[in-house]
């Protein structure tokens, strides 16, 4: 399957604009992700990372521009084609989004139950294999509410890869984890890519994690892409906003006194 790629890019975003109501959140986003590449989307809080991800997942519709996943345009896809496409992508949400009414194992095998006609025994084994992959083998029978934060993230990852997807999206894998768990999760992402040749998009604001796993990094700032380039190039960029993000400096914009007073007083 990995060999059969019908388009040059796994993900292709062109001139994407997005709004929440009147407010513009994303501004003319252009992004290409190669097959088998790990692309990290970085940016400060509120820069629009999660919004971009929601658009890539087809959960929100853009106000302008187009998104192609595996060569298929999300806007012009039929329901059936979209359904087929969704079999080939896995998503691990920031908060896990495990179904609270099911055990961990039931959560993990749910996509199989819905998309395949496999024997139940095969499904169960596949689910347990994925739980092995994320080191949660003993916890399949627990409910999501009985898991710790890091375990939830790993369970969500197990569910995301159950169908052996070609595209994997991961929102904030290491946020809120202790350093050891975060490093383990990074290693896991790298191993997954190596073994299964998945194209992976990771949203994060953890620098170390980004530098470790990324092939290329896209830096978002206030809804615009500042740069998309290799880890080295991003590290050495002399763009002040990128530098302040990298060096964890507070924002130091020039202040327009009139405008500032207007914001405070409303006059």
């Amino acid at each position, binding site marked *: *399957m990995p060999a059969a790629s019908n388009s040059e890019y796994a993900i292709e975003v062109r001139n994407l604009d997005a709004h929440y109501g009147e407010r513009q959140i994303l501004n003319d986003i252009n992004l290409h992700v190669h097959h088998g590449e790990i692309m990290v989307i970085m940016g400060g809080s509120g820069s629009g990372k999660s919004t971009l991800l929601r658009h890539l997942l087809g959960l929100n519709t853009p106000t302008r521009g187009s998104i192609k996943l595996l060569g298929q345009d999300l806007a012009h896809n039929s329901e059936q084609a979209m359904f087929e496409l969704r079999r080939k992508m896995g998503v691990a949400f920031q908060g896990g989004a495990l179904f609270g009414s099911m055990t961990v194992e039931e959560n993990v095998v749910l996509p199989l139950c819905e998309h395949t*006609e496999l024997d139940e025994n095969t*499904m169960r084994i*596949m689910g347990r*294999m994925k739980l092995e*992959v994320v080191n949660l083998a003993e916890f399949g029978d627990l409910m999501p509410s009985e898991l710790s934060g890091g375990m939830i993230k790993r369970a969500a990852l197990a569910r995301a890869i159950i169908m*052996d997807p070609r595209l994997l999206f991961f929102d904030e894998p290491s946020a809120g984890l202790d350093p050891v768990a975060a490093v383990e999760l990074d290693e896991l992402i790298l191993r997954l890519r190596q*073994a*299964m040749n998945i194209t992976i998009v990771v949203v994060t604001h953890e620098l170390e994690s980004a530098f470790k796993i990324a092939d290329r990094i896209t830096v978002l700032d206030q809804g615009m892409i500042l740069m998309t380039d290799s880890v080295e190039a991003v590290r050495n960029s002399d763009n002040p906003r990128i530098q302040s993000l990298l060096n964890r400096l507070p924002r130091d914009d020039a202040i327009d006194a009139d405008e500032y007073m207007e914001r405070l007083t409303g006059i």
Partner: protein
Amino acid sequence: MECTTRLENGFTIIALCGEVDLHFSPKAREIILKHLQDKNHVLVDLSAVTYIDSSGVASLVEGFQHARTHDLKFALVGVSKAAMQILQLSRLDKVFPIIANATEAAQL
């Protein structure tokens, strides 16, 4: 995506080929389990497999489990590098008997 089977030194050698994915693995599973139910020792030859996904691996696990509970021999032959990486991901490379070629089967 045809499976061929042949008998050699008391082993049934099942040669899978092509892509062992969601579509094909139910059939592979059926063939493997059928030969085990007939009380044959089984070698699964993966050398012609270009891609195996976790449903394929799960079918192999089922076969191996069946063999273990019925005192039959079971091993994988000709595991490619790509297939090996899939096995390693869930540490199954340390669980399956894996041999380089069918002649080694005598030592199992």
